């Protein structure tokens, strides 16, 4: 046996830590989320994604470093062309460890996943219903609690929990405002629901996220999140 494995393990271990940080940094740059966290759901989802990035970095570093380290340290050097490697073919303790530890890790992520899901889908007391209708290739909105009218832009008051009650006229569509993070399909024949609370005023874009035919790429609608006063004024305008 050529190898002083204890020394190799030490070096590789240090490199795993270093590379976890490096990969995490690279991923942070490579996976940029939109700057605006436009809804009460956004932060929780961004955090969850951030936690996953650590998992990717850590597990990725572990495998890549041991692989890269082996490539360098255990390569056949000139003159070793006919040599064989060290003879060992398994270790039950290790195998059990790398079954059980990932099991624990995914369980933790499962628990976090359930919590965040509960958080982003939780019903609120004072929800306002907006009826969303998708059709090839446009959107319509109705505000049943404020009167009988339909609009082609979506205007909602800031910090008001919304219950979107959605239906599709022809084929599948999907409701997605990037800044709000969450999305939900619209299905002909049934009503689907999405809960979201816009927290940033401004003008955003609703984009259809489910392939729905020719003009799918351009199935857009303007979304305006406004103050409560502005919203009331807008409702008045619509009712005229």
């Amino acid at each position, binding site marked *: 046996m050529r190898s002083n494995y204890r020394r190799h393990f030490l070096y590789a271990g240090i490199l795993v830590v270093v590379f976890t940080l490096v990969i995490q940094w690279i991923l942070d740059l490579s996976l940029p989320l939109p700057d605006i966290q436009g809804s009460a759901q956004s932060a929780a989802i961004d955090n969850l994604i951030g936690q996953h990035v650590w998992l990717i970095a850590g597990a990725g570093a572990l495998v890549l470093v041991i692989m890269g380290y082996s490539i360098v340290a255990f390569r*056949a050097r000139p003159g070793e062309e006919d040599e064989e490697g060290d003879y060992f073919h398994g270790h039950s303790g290790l*195998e059990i460890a790398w079954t059980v530890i990932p099991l624990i890790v995914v369980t933790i992520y499962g628990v976090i*996943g359930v919590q965040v899901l509960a*958080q982003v889908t939780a019903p609120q007391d004072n929800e306002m219903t907006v009826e969303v209708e998708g059709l090839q290739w446009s959107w319509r909105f109705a505000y049943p609690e404020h009167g009988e009218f339909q609009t082609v832009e979506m205007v909602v008051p800031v910090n008001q929990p919304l219950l979107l009650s959605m239906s599709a006229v022809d084929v599948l569509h999907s409701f997605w405002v*990037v800044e709000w993070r969450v999305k939900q399909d619209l299905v*002909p024949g049934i009503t689907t629901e999405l809960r979201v609370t816009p927290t940033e005023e401004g003008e955003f874009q609703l984009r259809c996220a489910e392939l729905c035919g020719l003009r799918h790429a351009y199935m857009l609608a303007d979304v305006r999140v406004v103050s409560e006063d502005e919203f009331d004024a807008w409702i008045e305008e619509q009712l005229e």
Partner: protein
Amino acid sequence: MLMQLGLTRGLIYQAAGTVLGMVVTMVWRLLAGMDLWDQEVVFVVGGLVGGFAFMWGVGAIDDWLEWCRGKATPLVHGPPRDKPAWTRYFSTDYNHKVIGIQYSVTSLLMLMIGGSFALIFRAELAQADLQFLGMGMYNKLIGLHGWAVIAAILLGVGGMANYLVPLMIGAEDMAFPRLNAFAFWINIPGGLLLLASAFLGGFDAGWTAYPPLSTQGAVGYQFLFLAIYFVGLSSILGSLNLLVTILTMRPKGMDLFRIPIFCWAVLATSLIQLTATQAIGTAFLMGLSERALGMGFFDPEGGGNPILFQHIFWFYSHPAVYVFVLPGLGIISELLPVFSRKPLFGYRWIALSSLAIALVGFLVWGHHMFTSGYSPYLRVPFMVATLLVAVPTGVKFFSWVATMWGGRLRFPTPMLFTLGAISVFLLGGLTGPILATVASDLYLHDTYFVVGHFHATLFGGFVFPFCAAIYFWFPKITGRMYNEALGKLHFYIMTPAFWLMSIGQMTVGTMGMRRRIVDYDPTLGGGLVEARHLETTIAAFLIGLSILIMIYNLVTSAEIGVRAPANPWRSRSPEWQIPSPVPEHSYAAPLQVVGEPYDYGLEEEYVVMDESQAGHAQAH
């Protein structure tokens, strides 16, 4: 000469059969007092009859027809007597090595066709706005790209399994050679129907073909449904054959935990193919009959439910993704010990992890439907089941790096592709859990992030290992070495290009770009989205270029490569203990297992030939 090829005859029969089927349908409609022309019904019957006419013309059912007449037919092995030897590759042939090569070459062809479709729309995406592709054309190309490369992957899987499994277990051939030929040839009418759908208006709902869009679209959908029916039939029959071969045809002493590890991967893959493929057949048959016969399965207009389709579709299509990658992962496990000169670490764990992935893979289809509008209570169980898949997948990675640890690594082209495969599949696997925890998927679903995820899994799990396998067994197949410098050039172009492409896709995805759109908002990601797209397009073209280099290498080396020794890699696997190219009947004598498959570093052999029974194999 051309008419002597089964393939030519098959193609003529298919064309004639299609026309005949269409005419008969129209006459029958006329007699029944209906309108002469109903494109849905007429094209379906035409496509179906044409497909089976191909099988008749190519000669894949000749023996069975004889049997129906009560005549026994001998199983003829060997090149045709009255024709040049190369013609056997274009005709029905029962030798598994020929069939394996037929599969693999067809796979490469389909991969290049499907890849070209992608290059067309990648060029369009290099800049925001509409360039040269129309919206309709774009929507049709993405679906065609998807199914063409999926067909290519299934063919590649079939190619590796058919060529290698009988050789690895020392069997003379597959359990059912005629069924094997049938299962290969049925892919040809299938592939032709798939490509022909483009001329009938194509299919514009992506490879997933979700209704109601797919029940309303052009008649091209019917050819898609039929094509996948044929290709699926190939999967079912091929996997049955492989299962029986592996389970019943092993030589003395080769118990299941002593077979080469690739055979375990094929075992797990075949279990999935044999039991899941029916689901996509059902989904597409229902779509076909909804369109042709007005049955209201999916479109609510007719009383159907669109979500039902998604369940049936993914009940196949999730397990199918493991069909695409498990054989490739088997190739990785197969090659690492050879080039590390060290036993495979944790053979049993790797073998059983394939089975575990296959079984758990049946319980996770709902992770494609988190936003579909199914009952919200389904989300958590599907999340948990999906996260569990990461565990056996992790076992594979850890066992691979432990195999390399302490070895004496060398890096010819096949090893490079094996290492590339591990690194790329790692990227794909690790971007899975983030899609499994529902809340994060509510953001990432139907974005380019998912596109990045599955391209990494499929390149890492299929394309890289397939290349590794091609380079590795090339000397066994042709008796000549490939060009090492060109092989390395291929690797050093494709790997960085792939990483650039895959990360680029993920980047635009997290920036908020939806998938399946012909045009995107250039202000996404603070205006950086367009630059990432340009890089991704350049990378995609580099990948295409590198594949062309490989094809050039293979074609020229088969002619002028240096003669390969019987065992250039000093592998312990049985197929390397016999001459290259492999003789018609592979082994001159039955194999006897005397050691372990991956005991590199020990003197004793894995298998020896039982010379006392030499000649026994040919006696059949």
